[in-house]
């Protein structure tokens, strides 16, 4: 009983993690771009005169989206038109349940895991959920009964399938190193120090893999410089025929996918919940305090790392201009994929040699 309740609590927590990040990223997006471009950014919404440096816009935006007319054009395929935003947003949200937000902590005489869905196939689960999310994009384009929407959906499918393949390949090296598809085990593998100074994070062993992962991940989220499926300012995309909160859901999808990619990057390359220079247990805090304090530290570390990656992704989004579609596919199929495969082969070879020579890399 308590196990089921705990799983429910964790899943709700993961959902809240994603949704709050998405809302907060709306603010970050505006303010970060504004500060970077010598502007001020949205700061007009207020409650009783309190503007809170534009944070009130987080509340104002959904109110606006929810109260707008939800216009469904004549001629759309109604079922799919309705289903598409839910699929697009829902499955990346599901993927968030698979991440280890912290390791195991002991409290009240038992061990509590901080991973909502403890699956030995966690990584596959995440990739599958993100891949199903693509269907939302294609479905939206198809159901709109509009050429622009359809073309946008096709661009989206071409791009996201290409980069889904790339993403999986860029992670192959790291996965091979950890020898597991279990995200919790992968994080646990990295949760130690090499020689007491260098954290054994994936990025130390897989720098090329990490850079390629970031590029492929950015492309998967369909955000600038890879925002060809939507391109809301110039080329219209798959959500032309959507309005109101359905449109808002598509916009949120991009942010949620950014969070998913950031979580994945943190889990596989930045040590997950690992806090450097922290001993694995803090017995001096006593049995009542140790578990919760450890949990808070792990969750804090994970969140801070995710914030860092999101900050970087956001900066990239506001720095680079959009690619052309052929450049985009060239980058994916002809550059990232071969490089990622080479990285994987080199990693495999290095691991073989390390094992043959008895180098101790593994815990």
């Amino acid at each position: 009983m308590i196990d089921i309740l705990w799983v429910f609590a964790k899943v709700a927590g993961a959902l809240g993690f994603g949704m709050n990040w998405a809302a907060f990223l709306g603010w970050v997006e505006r303010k970060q771009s504004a500060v970077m471009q010598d502007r001020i950014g949205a700061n007009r919404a207020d409650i009783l005169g309190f503007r809170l440096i534009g944070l009130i816009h987080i509340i104002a935006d959904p109110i606006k989206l929810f109260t707008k007319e939800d216009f469904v054009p004549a001629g759309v395929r109604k079922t799919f038109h309705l289903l598409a935003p839910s699929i697009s947003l829902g499955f990346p949200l599901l993927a968030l349940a698979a991440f280890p937000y912290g390791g195991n902590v002991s409290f009240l005489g038992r061990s509590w895991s901080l991973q909502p869905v403890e699956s030995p196939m966690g990584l596959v689960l995440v990739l599958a959920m993100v891949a199903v999310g693509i269907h939302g994009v294609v479905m939206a384009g198809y159901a709109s009964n509009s050429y622009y929407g359809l073309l946008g959906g096709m661009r989206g499918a071409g791009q996201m399938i290409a980069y889904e393949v790339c993403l999986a390949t860029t992670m192959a090296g790291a996965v091979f190193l950890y020898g597991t598809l279990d995200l919790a085990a992968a994080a646990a593998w990295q949760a130690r120090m090499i020689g007491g100074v260098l954290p054994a994070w994936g990025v130390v062993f897989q720098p090329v893999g990490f850079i390629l992962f970031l590029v492929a991940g950015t492309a998967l989220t369909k955000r600038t410089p890879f925002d060809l499926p939507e391109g809301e300012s110039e080329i219209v995309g798959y959500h032309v025929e959507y309005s109101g909160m359905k449109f808002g859901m598509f916009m949120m999808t991009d942010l949620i996918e950014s969070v998913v990619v950031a979580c994945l990057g943190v889990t596989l390359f930045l040590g997950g919940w690992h806090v450097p220079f922290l001993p694995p247990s803090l017995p001096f805090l006593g049995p009542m305090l140790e578990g919760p304090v450890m949990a808070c530290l792990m969750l804090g570390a994970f969140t801070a790392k995710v914030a860092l990656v999101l900050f970087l992704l956001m900066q990239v989004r506001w720095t680079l201009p959009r690619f052309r579609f052929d450049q985009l596919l060239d980058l994916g199929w002809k550059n990232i994929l071969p490089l990622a495969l080479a990285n994987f082969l080199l990693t495999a070879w290095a691991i073989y040699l390390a094992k043959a020579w008895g180098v101790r890399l593994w815990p």
Partner: protein
Amino acid sequence: MTVRPVSRPERGWQVQIYLLEVVYGLGVTFRHFFTNLWRHSAALAGLKTEPGAVTIQYPEDPPALGVRARTRHRILSRPDGTPRCTACLLCETICPARCIRITAEESPDPLIEKRAKTFDLDLGLCVFCGYCVEACPVDAIRMDTNDLRIPSFDRRGMIWSLDKLMGKG
């Protein structure tokens, strides 16, 4: 015909692989970000720094207008207070937006031939080209009021009469 050869920009491999250029671009934007962030925080803390943003928050801050900005028109007056306009209709003729409507009448002053009985300028149509100012032979109309608060809730309110343009009511 002269031909000016333009050399194509040299792009070495370090530009072609794009990754280094991305890092360089990120360096520029990060520099801006952190400089401005520091300036904003310093301003919040009450320190004196350069402003972190070039934004002018218009209704609260005064607008920054150029010295030669063309803004709302005004009609100048003679020393005795009558309008300088001689109702020559040159401004009405040149106005590309056709937003000036003048009716002329005889002037009681024998030295002046005509004067404007009505002078209506529809600021809602005006494109602020300044041709009327250039056309006026007696320098009666100028666009140097630096007044931006001309909007009105209906179109009629955008039509300014002679009195309003002279700053009388």
